[in-house]
């Protein structure tokens, strides 16, 4: 009995060990994807017929998103008939998890949607550096490139489209309170004052929710961008500024000042999420203002609340500018290191940020291009109000450079900070520990 059981178990163990060694071999065989492949990204696309798989959640972002992106795909295929693009419209929720899985398996799509900076850095072993893979026209005209570098000095994505954080303003509610929006947003102290006035009149100033923490991040981006000059932004993107630097502490203080002035409507905001609860507040006409970064949200706001207009968030006292808004690329496109078709993938990402593609997207889903040589004609009221704010040449953003661990800390500590159960010092210290975690 001992013999047979022993043999039985040993065989099983041997099998398991063999299996794990095979797996380990597969796993460690990963020095492929040398940078020699980068030069292929600019080479002419071979004549052989291929299918390029592209993963993106962007088509799902807009009602007409699928149309916009299939038009872009068609235009590319017209230029390169040998390439068929298989654009997979991926749902947002599982997206980054699936990209993570693909980077472990080193198999999957050829081109992916990916944010730059710290997010791309987290996937860097699966992405080609693209700073030397930009076609000359792209290199000359592409905006927001500097902000999207990762801290190892590589640009892992080509930035596309434009977003900019501003306020949608419910003019009817302001009128009801007898306050002029222009005056309210003319300075920081006027802004805080108008929060107090609106609250006193029973109107919640800003649509808010702290539970998911994204609103805190949004204000952090907006305020720190105002407080960073170009040189500081460069250092921040390079990872050389910690999150317990005075600038970020000051921004946290400004957010708490806004809270004290009643901008967020009180304790009920603690239990709400930014997505969707805060948005729904504005759409239901219950708040005077809301922060938004996208034209489509502005249009949705206008559709729900016809007295909506878009106005610039005031400059914080520490701002180094007079009219900067936190603005940058709406999204980014990367080429995966395991792609079998680097030439086609390189051509496609360059095409995605070309005037032809970006104009299609502007015309269909109202995302402004991030190209110096393309000016767009604004037609709708929201476009007329919003696009000039976005296109201010001094605009920049440091949002991409926030490490994911820091963002996770902000997200779960936002409600405790605003509720007062966590001190600003403790908040900053936890954020800084998270910052140090990101190697």
């Amino acid at each position, binding site marked *: 009995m001992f013999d047979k059981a022993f043999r039985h178990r040993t065989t099983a163990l041997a099998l398991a060990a063999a299996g794990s060694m095979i797996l380990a071999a597969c796993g460690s065989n990963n020095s492929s994807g040398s940078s020699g492949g980068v030069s292929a990204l600019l080479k002419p696309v071979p004549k052989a017929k291929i299918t390029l798989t592209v993963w993106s959640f962007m088509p799902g972002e807009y009602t007409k998103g699928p149309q916009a992106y299939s038009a872009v795909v068609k235009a590319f295929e017209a230029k390169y008939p040998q390439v068929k693009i298989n654009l997979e419209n991926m749902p947002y929720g*599982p997206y980054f998890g699936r990209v993570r899985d693909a980077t472990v398996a080193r198999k999957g799509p050829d081109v992916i949607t990916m944010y730059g900076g710290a997010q791309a850095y987290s996937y860097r072993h699966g992405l080609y550096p693209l700073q030397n893979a930009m076609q000359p026209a792209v290199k000359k005209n592409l905006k927001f490139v500097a902000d999207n570098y990762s801290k190892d000095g590589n640009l892992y994505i080509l930035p596309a489209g434009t977003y900019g954080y501003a306020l949608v303003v419910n003019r009817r509610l302001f009128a009801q309170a007898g306050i002029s929006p222009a005056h309210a947003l003319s300075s920081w102290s006027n802004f805080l004052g108008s929060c107090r006035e609106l609250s006193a009149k029973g109107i919640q100033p800003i649509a808010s929710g702290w539970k998911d923490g994204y609103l805190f991040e949004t204000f952090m981006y907006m305020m720190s961008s105002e407080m960073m000059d170009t040189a500081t932004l460069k250092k921040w993107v390079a990872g050389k500024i910690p999150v317990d630097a005075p600038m970020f502490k000051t921004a946290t203080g400004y957010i708490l000042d806004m809270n004290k002035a009643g901008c967020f409507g009180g304790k009920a905001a603690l239990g709400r999420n930014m997505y969707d609860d805060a948005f729904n507040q504005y759409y239901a006409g219950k708040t005077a203002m809301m922060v938004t970064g996208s034209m489509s949200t502005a249009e949705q706001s206008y559709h729900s609340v016809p007295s909506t207009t878009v106005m610039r968030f005031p400059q914080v006292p520490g701002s180094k500018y007079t009219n900067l808004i936190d603005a940058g690329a709406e999204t980014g496109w990367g080429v995966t290191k395991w792609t079998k078709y680097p030439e086609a993938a390189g051509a496609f990402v360059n095409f995605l940020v070309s005037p032809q593609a970006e104009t299609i997207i502007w015309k269909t889903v109202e995302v402004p291009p991030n190209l110096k040589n393309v000016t767009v004609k604004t037609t709708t009221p929201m476009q007329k109000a919003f696009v000039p704010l976005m296109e201010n040449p001094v605009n920049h953003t440091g949002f991409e450079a926030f490490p994911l661990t820091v963002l996770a800390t902000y997200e779960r500590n936002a409600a405790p900070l605003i509720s007062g159960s966590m001190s600003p010092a403790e908040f900053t210290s936890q954020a800084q520990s998270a910052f140090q975690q990101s190697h």
Partner: protein
Amino acid sequence: MTLRVERWLKTGIAALITIPFVVPFLMLLSTSFRTFKDYIDNPGGLPGAFTLNNLTAAWTGGNLGGALISSFITCVVACVVAGLAALGGAYWFRIHQGRIVAALRWTLVAGWAIPTVAWLIPVFVILTEVGFSNSRVVTGVVDGVSSLPFALYLLHTFFRQVLSTDILEAATLDGATVLRTFGQIAVPLARPALAAVTALVFVWTFGDLLVAATLLQDPSVNTLTLATASLATRENLNLQEQAAAGLVALLPTLLVFVFAQRALQLGFGGGGGK
């Protein structure tokens, strides 16, 4: 306490307990059938305006018809895999004793102790390597295996209580081989417990998101739970369409439950009166 008082008291308590179960369900119903404007005006309040738009939008936008089929495939495969493998294994452990056997059994049950994300990533890598990505059948197998330790524990406990040594001895006396005894005596006796396992594995597989999201990346093979989650975009939680899709998901799982009610009553009791 008189019988009548006891009856009223118990019924009253039982009825009170139903409240926390009925209210969330009503909330789900209400969220599915309210217009967007009605919802944002009063998210927590009583429904005002009725619409079927959420349901139709979720059905077409999420391809819920196809998703139901995909869920059906994964769930049935999972039930078959978990049921058969656990059945055979539970019987084997019933007819073998000893410390080593017990240790092996506990190890197999302990498979449950490994967090899903830890075993799922390597499994995903291997499956991708051999080209089994986006396979609903393979996903069903993996889902079934993820419930296998529980199925084993349950069926073994059941066999312990129901397959007495006398029965096993009688079969041997009749000259039956182990496999024959398994097929002709153990399996029929196991039907109630097997039905219980099937019902639970079905419901768990149906509601699984992580395994499905990892192994099924092509939207055309989404399970219903995955399709529901896919209705949310980056900016829009789309709560109403998700709620409507959740209602659709209730139908198959409710059917399984009706079947489960009966089966669980038989299964966990230890197999008929003694």
